[in-house]
């Protein structure tokens, strides 16, 4: 899905838990997520802390979208 969308020329950032799978499916901009049941959250934290985590990941995602790349890049 990532590849097919990007094929139209729109930049895609893939936020995902299993980076190797993302690499296999051919995402170019990859941002690792927290864990499978909750990629952009962490139920062990308070609601506010969770939103901070989510924000950090999304900021990284915007950063990735702004970054020129020539090959598959994982934004850690």
């Amino acid at each position, binding site marked *: 899905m990532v590849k097919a969308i990007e094929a139209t*020329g729109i930049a895609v950032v893939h936020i995902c838990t299993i980076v190797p799978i993302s690499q296999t499916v051919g995402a170019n901009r990859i941002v690792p997520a927290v864990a499978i049941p909750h990629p952009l959250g962490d139920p062990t934290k308070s609601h506010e802390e969770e939103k901070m985590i989510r*924000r950090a990941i*999304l900021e990284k995602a915007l950063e990735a979208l702004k970054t020129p790349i020539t090959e598959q890049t994982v934004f850690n």
Partner: protein
Amino acid sequence: MTYRIVHYINQFFAGIGGEEKAGTGPESKDGAIGPGMAFKAAFGSEAEIVGTVICGDGYFAENMDGASEKILKMISDFSPDAVIAGPAFNAGRYGTACGAVSEAVSKKLGIPVVTGMYPENPGVDMYRKGIYIVETSDSARGIKDAVPAMAKLIMKLLRAEPVGSPADEGYIERGVRVNCFQDKIGAERAVDMLVKKLKGEEFRTEYPMPVFDRVAPAEPIKDMKNAVIALVTSGGIVPKGNPDHIEASSATKYGTYSIAGVQSADEVAYATAHGGYDPTYANTDPNRVLPIDVLREMEKNGEFKKLYDYFFTTVGNGTPVANAKKFGTEIGARLKKDGVDAVILTST
């Protein structure tokens, strides 16, 4: 006996018209039309084109499921022994339609079907696994070569004769592994290959790794403050009640839902349809998968201009690559049309 064959073509080859007539709905005619005449000649007395089913490419693309069903009904009304579709050459929507119709015929009617396309037609990647697609040139000028090749293959299938290799029969590789004896033993082949690899000469692997085909990275967003961003997820977050019945795994569809004015993917309105993981965390706070709450905040702060009014969702778990690709192509086309600059895709 004379085999009964139905031919599927689009509005253009039926002589109805070009792009302006692409919205034409499915219709059915007796006998051969357009390229069907060439097939008729190729079949001689062995097979007969008993009917032609026509559908506009635009209509098909916009009403895929419904159109497919209607077309299938029209085809089966002729009680055919086999179906040929196209050839579609390099016409993308026509190729997709030929592929979809062929696949439906093969799966639902269980009769032989052959279509034809240029290898770069997007329909090839989507449907090659299930059906025979004869390789054609990129334009209708190639009809002279395409027709005999397609006719020969469909006759083989009708006679239940063994089908040879893609090179011998002229169809595009379906990705099926077939055993065959080589001239040399494996070890000699391996050492030959190593010698070539070391010399920098060309060599051909006998087992290409599962496709790692790549799309070149899109240009980065230069002006994020003015960018429109769309949210897509394979994590299965849907409006509560799952109105479109997206499957918990091996999804055959995706959903498109408005989030205009929605400030947060709260647990009242949203839930997950995903069957691959413990849904508790996603259901307690769907923002953990579909982060609308924080994106709205960022939008307000002016970190980017606008969150696109719709989000797209499906379940990534076990979904066939062809489906995922189809979803992506359709979503991409829509986003492009609506001037979206970038996509955030979340997966579990």
